[in-house]
């Protein structure tokens, strides 16, 4: 068991050279999949942002742009039977898990064909078929819930692992500390992932704590913890796989402080006065989508033509998602009375 906190270099200190084929730890297929999935996340989110500004749909809209390697590495480092849960910055997780982007776009549009039938919106994506258990709007609420999902896996003696993601802001919620204590005490098969983009909305990690190294949060609970370069799908994959192996062996949870960056604001209405353009540019220089493309090109995994095919496919998927959403009906008013209770004849109070 790793008790000591491993410290990964912060992304900004990372120098990344494109590896030659012989040095690569991951296969050609893996890089192609990462590139394809992350490009789809990126383009989906870019479009979602544009459509939001055009007021095609309402509500909140929290984009994942810049953080794609976290989901990409988590999905590739896990098994299809594992389960995933996150907070409200939740568009990329189901894309990574293979949910059709059409039903996600339809959910943003509040349409009945959406992944949550237009009842959850941007913050509450769900896809049971892909083991994506939400999409939760209250900061930190998913942390005990995710541990509870893991409790059930342990109770049923499966070897499935549950991945619970949160932002760096959620680390300050009491629910996290209560859950860490129980999850370690009961050795639940849960991996806690901090998608540490350094800002809780506009408040930096430094401004909210004396403990700025978030991987240390696990120490009080003797939870194996480490920081991970979140701009690298390879690093995320390796950390996820190692943590998952521990969990599958009955050794309980791991805390991963995955250091990532969101290029866009917290939500669509964020003037971003809390950071500099230079800081954003520094991370954009380590962009995970560009990195995978570079590896693919350097190692001649794909021809220029094949790369173009992927890019065109992504563009088409996003375009068709918009068309699907815009051509889908809104839910009818009476659908309010569906999916509130499992009891089919629940006697709702109906007034004027």
């Amino acid at each position, binding site marked *: 068991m790793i008790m000591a906190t491993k410290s990964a270099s912060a992304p900004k200190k990372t120098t990344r050279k494109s590896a030659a084929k012989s040095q690569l730890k991951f296969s050609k297929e893996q890089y192609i999949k990462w590139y394809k999935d992350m490009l789809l996340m990126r383009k989906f989110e870019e479009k979602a942002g544009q459509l939001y500004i055009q007021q095609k749909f309402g509500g909140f809209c929290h984009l994942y742009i810049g953080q794609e390697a976290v989901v990409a590495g988590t999905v590739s480092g896990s098994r299809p039977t594992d389960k995933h849960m996150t907070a409200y910055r939740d568009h990329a997780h189901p894309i990574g898990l293979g949910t059709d982007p059409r039903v996600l776009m339809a959910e943003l549009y509040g349409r009945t064909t959406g992944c949550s039938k237009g009842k959850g919106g941007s913050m509450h994506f769900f896809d049971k078929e892909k083991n994506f258990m*939400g999409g939760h709007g209250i900061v930190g609420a998913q942390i005990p819930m995710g541990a509870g*999902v893991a409790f059930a896996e342990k109770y049923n003696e499966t070897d499935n692992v549950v991945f619970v993601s949160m932002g760096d802001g959620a680390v300050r919620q009491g629910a996290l500390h209560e859950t860490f204590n129980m999850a370690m005490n009961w050795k639940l098969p849960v991996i806690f992932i901090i998608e540490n983009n350094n800002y809780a909305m506009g408040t930096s990690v430094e401004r909210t704590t004396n403990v700025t190294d978030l991987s240390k949060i696990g120490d009080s609970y003797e939870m194996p913890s480490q920081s991970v370069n979140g701009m690298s799908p390879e690093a995320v994959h390796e950390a996820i796989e190692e943590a998952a192996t521990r969990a599958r062996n009955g050794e309980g949870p791991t805390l991963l402080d995955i250091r990532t960056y969101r290029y866009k604001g917290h939500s669509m209405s964020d003037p971003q006065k809390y950071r500099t353009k230079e800081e954003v540019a520094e991370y954009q220089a380590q962009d995970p989508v560009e990195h995978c493309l570079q590896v693919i090109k350097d190692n001649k995994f794909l021809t220029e033509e094949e790369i173009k095919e992927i890019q065109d496919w992504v563009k088409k998927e996003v375009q068709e998602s918009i068309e699907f959403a815009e051509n889908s009906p809104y839910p009818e008013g009476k659908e309010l009375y569906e999916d509130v209770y499992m009891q089919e004849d629940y006697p709702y109070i109906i007034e004027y």
Partner: protein
Amino acid sequence: MKTVQFREALREAMSEEMRRDKNVFLMGEEVAEYNGAYKVSQGMLDEFGPKRVIDTPIAELGFAGIGVGASMNGLRPIVEFMTWNFAILAADQIINSAAKMLQMSGGQYHCPIVFRGGNGTAGQLAATHSQSFEAFYAHVPGLKVITPSTPADAKGLLKSAIRDNDPVVFLESEKMYGDKDEIPEGEYLIPIGVADTKRKGADVTIVSFGKIIKVAHAAADVLAKEGIECEIIDLRTIRPIDYPAVVESIKKTNRCVVVEESWPLASISSEIAYHVQRYAFDYLDAPVMRVTQTDTPFAFSPTLIDEALPNVDRIVKAVKATLYRN
């Protein structure tokens, strides 16, 4: 029939359901090795073992959330709160997570979970330990809320709650756990959402629930000596409320008094009064009256407790007021 304590009736309900379904488990503070803070779960650790009867640390928000997550993933947790006052810390998971999960996920995930524990006043425990939560939780669509007043109802309703596929808030009372009464032998269920006429009478309908209904019974005895026959409707379930049972009784008596342990504003008594004026207006011969706790936080001293809670005298006065008698 057999005579058991209220706590034994609850224990029978949980144990029978745990024998029947391996996905049912009990978690909470002191439920296992200590045998329950109020001995409700006494002996259950011995029968079911530590995998299914689980002591938690004092972390209501955390273990309530773990229960919700487990229920999303196929289990049927019974989460015991030592009292519902402490469950205020877990309200986020009950109200924001459990109650909304089915809707927010577009019907994909549901939470078959029971949250249960002591509710309401329990002697000289002062303001933070003496609150009733029927109205708080009944306000929330997605939840079901149950407040039994007898051991027989407690067992049948708790079994139904554990089998129910929706999240259930189950409100008991520290003051009732020692109550002894008859319950049927063998297995039985009582449906959620069905009120029970605990006393028949033609003159005035008293609507009540939970342990304060005992005071209503005592008042009805006093009134009977004066020739006033009260009908007592025990709501048993607070969400959904069995409105037809209330309205039918009022069509007969034409008078209604609601007796509630908690505060008056935005209460179950307000709700009943609204419903009665809306759906039994033409049958009423007097305004609906209510007897509730004073509109103040509960206090420590016995004299203050006497002043705060509904008592026989107040109920008698309210009933007589509906009859225009002194």
